[in-house]
């Protein structure tokens, strides 16, 4: 049976929203940890705000709250229904998309998504503080993993699968690029080779936000270095949140669509454009070109993939 354009769209966004909920939870966890350990005056608020900036939520936050403390930021990122990127909004949007395509996803996927939403929507924000907040953030990540597990374990490898996977990895690529861009200045090469205390804190934040603080050691066998961190999150093919890894996943799934439908579309050119940026290059070249410029270029090309994908497969 041929797939409705709307179904393809719903599948793409279903996966994107699940991934986004997971990334929001991870980011908030980082902000929360940093705010606990910061010794400087006003440090907690500073960390939380830079974390909001990474998620491009700082302006929306400032419209609603005067003070950035753990309670206001946690509420805003987890529960605020007026924040379209809060975990609440993401899970609701994901579940709505899933409900629209009940017939195109498996029972296991539906039950995972429906269960996550039903549980989350029962939670009262004021009951979630301190240790409970960390527990809940972990829960969000786990539900995202559960959904992805149900997806990988049960769905047919057809066009629906390709749209789901493309959505997942377009979102992840965007997230990693934004985290890096937020802190790009602490990754720039400098005359002093050893990072100061502040640098180490910032680097840790970046790595944790990508769940990469432990795997870093496995790959580099070295202390944290700006060059390595950037390399890890941009160019390492074994790092499942790196830009190149995500780009490869997008490529593979768009190629699957081309194979199934027997035709390449505008989105395939856009995907090749994105790949060109992260393939056949190294960190020295990227630094020479400018890290900030590079990341923005990547984000733009990644957005182009979504736009052309929508047009190529009749999203509406």
């Amino acid at each position, binding site marked *: *049976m*041929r*797939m*409705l*354009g*709307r179904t*393809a769209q719903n599948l793409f966004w279903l996966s994107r929203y699940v991934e986004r909920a997971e990334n929001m939870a991870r980011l908030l966890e980082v902000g929360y940890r940093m705010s606990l350990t910061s010794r400087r005056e006003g440090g907690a608020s500073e960390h939380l705000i830079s974390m909001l900036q990474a998620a491009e939520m700082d302006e929306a936050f400032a419209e609603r709250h005067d003070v950035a403390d753990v309670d206001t930021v946690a509420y805003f990122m987890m529960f605020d229904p007026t924040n379209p990127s809060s975990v609440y909004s993401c899970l609701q949007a994901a579940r*709505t998309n899933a*409900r*629209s395509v*009940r*017939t195109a996803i498996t*029972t296991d996927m*539906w*039950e995972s998504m*429906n*269960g996550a939403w*039903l549980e989350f929507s029962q939670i009262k924000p004021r009951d979630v503080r301190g240790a409970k907040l960390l527990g809940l953030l972990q829960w969000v990540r786990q539900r995202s993993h559960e959904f992805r597990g149900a997806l990988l374990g049960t769905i047919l490898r057809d*066009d629906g699968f390709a749209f789901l996977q493309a959505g997942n990895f377009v979102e992840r690529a965007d997230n990693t690029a934004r985290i890096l861009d937020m802190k790009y200045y602490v990754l720039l090469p400098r005359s002093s080779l050893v990072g100061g205390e502040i640098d180490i804190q910032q680097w840790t934040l970046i790595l944790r936000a990508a769940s990469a603080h432990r795997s870093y050691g496995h790959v580099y066998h070295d202390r944290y270095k700006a060059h390595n961190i950037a390399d890890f999150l941009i160019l390492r093919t074994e790092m499942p949140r790196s830009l190149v890894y995500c780009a490869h996943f997008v490529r593979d799934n768009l190629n699957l669509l081309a194979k199934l*439908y027997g035709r390449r579309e505008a989105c395939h050119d856009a995907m090749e454009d994105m790949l060109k940026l992260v393939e056949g290059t190294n960190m020295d070249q990227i630094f020479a070109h400018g890290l900030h410029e590079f990341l923005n270029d990547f984000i733009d090309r990644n957005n182009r993939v979504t736009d052309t994908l929508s047009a190529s*497969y*009749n999203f*509406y």
Partner: protein
Amino acid sequence: MGENTPFDEMYNADGSVREPYRALSEWLAEQPEKGLALMQADAEAIFRKLGITFAVYGSEEGTEKVIPFDVIPRIIAANEWRKLSRGIEQRVKALNAFLYDIYHRQEILKAGRIPEKLILNNAAFCPQMMGLEPARGVYAHIIGVDIVRVGPDEFYVLEDNLRTPSGVSYMLEDREAMMMLAPDLFQRSKVAPVETYPENLRRTLESVAPAGAGRNPVIAVLTPGIYNSAYFEHSFLADQMGAQLCEGQDLFVDGGKVYMRTTTGPERVDVIYRRIDDDYLDPLTFRPDSMLGVPGIFDAYRAGNVTLVNAPGTGIADDKAVYTYVPEIIEFYLGEKALLNNVPTYNCTDVDQRAWVLENIAELVVKEVHGSGGYGMMVGPTSTKAQHEEFKKKIIARPDNYIVQPTLALSTCPTHINNDVAPRHVDLRPYVLVGDEVRITPGGLTRVALKKGSLVVNSSQGGGTKDTWVLED
């Protein structure tokens, strides 16, 4: 009819168990303490997890409830069912013949058997359907007939739902749940299967595909979308029969043909099982403000390029005012006497009948002619004096807007209430498919009024459902 003690489907008046309920009665006696309550909790969890929910109108958008499911099945004997299904088949054949006639030569009006005004001035009459030739001459393909039982051999038809009857997914899911919860009870009984419904639905829809469709007609289920109260059912049926689930925006008309927008371009659609009301189907033909429908779809239908199921305009045959004439209709088209009873209905526009109705309102049921879902109705014996007065005023103000019937003593079935078993009133909605042949699923949806003494079984008014068993010989 109307006796004080309602007919109980499990127990005779002397307390002995009626034959069809023997196995159930033994099984109930064997259940451990709290057994039913545990089963009930399991059932609720199953339904919620599967997302078998309905949206509640008037509450916050997206609020979803699970219809209460009762774990004690309702049982119908084989010979009882044979009689019922013969009566149902007769009824749906006559009603389809009536629809063909009304939208063509109108012989029944010319013969003076039904007042012309009642049809032609009726809001449910659809003039756009005049002269149109639907595939196989069928208008109402999917029908839910509401039936109540008042005695061992006494059944009444309350309503023929010929527009877009809902609830069939509950019939199917209730059976699934029941088989999961009480496999041992199934082993002791011979229960006719209901899970053939989706396949029969598909066959019915394929059988009415337009002449130009290929060997494998493309079938779509047209839903108003995820906020509709019956959305679960729409997606469930599409999934079960391997059809495409579409919203209005997924379809478009080009050159008098209907297409869906797919990832690889337009694909022709042959049969549309639409779960959108007539009024919203096509903004070019019906309500111009409709955002749910498909512009031009009615013209494509008229041109014979697509089949709409059910046809627009079937409401003229299940209108509450036309209902009174169904025995007449059966006789006129089939030359047979009606096998199933109609509930006697009083006509309030008749001065004498109205006077009698107003006098006896405390004993009667008043229904709005165009009401549904248990809204706009009053059950005399369970209403207050103030409500009686209110409805008297309404009848006097608009006598043509109400029909009045005696209060039927709906049969009761044993029902699980707070870890106890108590009789509750039930009705029955069997589902009928009409295409190349008439296919009736054994049983149907039993709705049960969970409130003690209540006669209103609608889910919007606190009703639940039961698995319905037709025993095989």
